[in-house]
């Protein structure tokens, strides 16, 4: 609690009353914020086909899993879309955790020729909007490398991001250099220092990096949408979009699909909340 709010030492009741009032306002705003998600989950349990004259209500009149069945029956690959999303997300996370942290360590603690301008180049590249690279990247993947409808096409462009290199470099810089120097004098190679000293000290930042990367890869729609055309290779996000455009009138099954696409993130969020929230401030607040 900061000194912004008066503690009302002379009158505790005032402080309690103020906090109750704030709680009410905050809960009201939270309900507004959460409402779309709540609505999505509730409606997904409604009947798959609305009978005419039915008005939609927030709580379905009859609870059923029909809409989930309808979503899965839409395409023989519906279940595979979720699997595809997992494959792409997990590979991307592994690539980033390994390669971005290695590069981040090199930029932070290894004094090698060319490191300064290379890192500068990556920083500049981070500011370039994706619209610039999307067309050449698409031509490269689909026309030159003929990789359309492969996992590689979805994974490789994001397997090490400049952002994650930057994030890990910022963290590794805070590790005291004398610690690493002494290990070097003891005959440890850079690889040894990295795996035995640096990585064990960096579990939090690696977890934050993994979660951020998983979330953005799982939720990404645009790139998989560009490089997949066969529906067995869709990710769940692309599948949901296809379902939406094919069934403009199926309310509850669409909600079931949306719920399915968000469910893994919700589970992860409730399990690893701390890292999610930490991930927001990492790299955002100036030190």
């Amino acid at each position, binding site marked *: 609690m900061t*000194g912004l709010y008066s503690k009302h030492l002379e009158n505790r009741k005032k402080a309690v009353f103020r906090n109750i009032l704030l709680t009410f306002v905050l809960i009201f705003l939270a309900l507004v914020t959460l409402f779309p998600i709540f609505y999505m989950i509730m409606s997904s349990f409604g009947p798959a086909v609305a009978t005419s004259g039915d008005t939609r209500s927030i709580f379905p009149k009859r609870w059923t899993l029909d809409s989930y069945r309808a979503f899965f029956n839409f395409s023989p690959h519906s279940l595979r879309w979720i699997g595809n999303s997992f494959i792409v997300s997990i590979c991307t996370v592994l690539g980033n955790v390994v390669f971005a942290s290695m590069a981040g360590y090199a930029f932070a603690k290894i004094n090698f020729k060319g490191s300064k301008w290379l890192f500068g180049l990556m920083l500049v590249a981070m500011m370039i909007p994706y619209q610039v690279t999307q067309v050449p990247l698409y031509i490269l993947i689909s026309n030159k490398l003929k990789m359309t409808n492969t996992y590689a096409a979805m994974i490789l462009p994001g397997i090490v991001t400049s952002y994650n290199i930057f994030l890990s470099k910022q963290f590794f810089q805070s590790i005291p250099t004398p610690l690493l120097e002494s290990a070097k004098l003891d005959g440890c190679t850079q690889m040894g220092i990295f795996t035995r000293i640096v990585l064990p000290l960096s579990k939090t930042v690696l977890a934050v990096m993994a979660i951020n990367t998983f979330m953005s890869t799982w939720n990404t729609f645009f790139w998989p949408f560009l490089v997949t055309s066969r529906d067995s290779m869709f990710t769940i996000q692309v599948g949901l979009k296809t379902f939406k455009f094919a069934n403009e009138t199926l309310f509850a099954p669409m909600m079931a699909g949306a719920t399915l696409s968000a469910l893994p993130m919700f589970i992860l969020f409730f399990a690893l909340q701390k890292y999610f929230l930490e991930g927001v401030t990492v790299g955002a607040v100036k030190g």
Partner: protein
Amino acid sequence: MSKNKVTGSFRRRFKITSDDRWGWLFIAAALLVFIIFTLYPVFSAVRTSFLKYKPFGSQFIGWKNYTDTFKNALFFKAVKNTLVYTVVVVPLSLLISFSIAIMILPFKKGTQSVFKAIYYLPGIASGVALSVVWLWIYDSSPSGLFNQVLAFFHIPPQNWLSSSKTSMLSLMLMALLSGQGGNIIIYIAAMMGIDNSLFEAAELDGAGFFKKIYYVVFPLCKPTTLFLLVTGVIGSFQVFQNAFMMTGGGPDNSTTMIGLLIYKNAFEYSKFGLACAQAILLAIVISAISLLQFKLMGVDVEY
């Protein structure tokens, strides 16, 4: 003698140390990915922007893609839409998240975390899922959710997304109501970092709650506000997905923003050269804003 000295420093400069070898080994994978999937596409985009692109035998047409862009009424409409969207959404979202952060502040750490988590939750659902949900919230039939709310106040149902009067408003409202969590958390972190003595000093000067916000919290959160403002503007210049999913840019291009225009030029009309030219113009505007941020940050951060 002097010649020896020169070659000595020359050798030292170009001698490959073990650190050099390790360094390049450690960045090898990242560098390869960076060159293939970032550096090459950027150069290729610049080149393509001067071409009439065809898979085989593109023609060099000079600045035509750029001049065509500035002759196109739709481009200016997209720029206007993007600016309107940005000018409304970004400041309002900062105001909302600042106010909510202020309200969360007096509670204990544990309660703060609960509120942070609640407000952050919509941000982890995918944009596709959220847009599907909002599509139904904006359903134009009387059973659409917003129309039910309107009916409660005896207002006739609206064609939220399919009328050019309300389509942009609907996209803005959706953005404001579903994505404040990150900003709130960042604001709280900044506010928690303010030294208590400053509030005490202000109190001694007779400052009340709102004066303390105005004279203490506001200026001390300025770097944060600036950061959120710039990232917000950059993000909103690139907005694509909600318009793509919910309105497709319509009706009558009332929600076609620059990101969607570039997408359509590239992947619907196969005008790769034109799309690249417009993307580069966008990049120039965005880097100008980033530079401005660095300049403001450098001069204007005061404690």
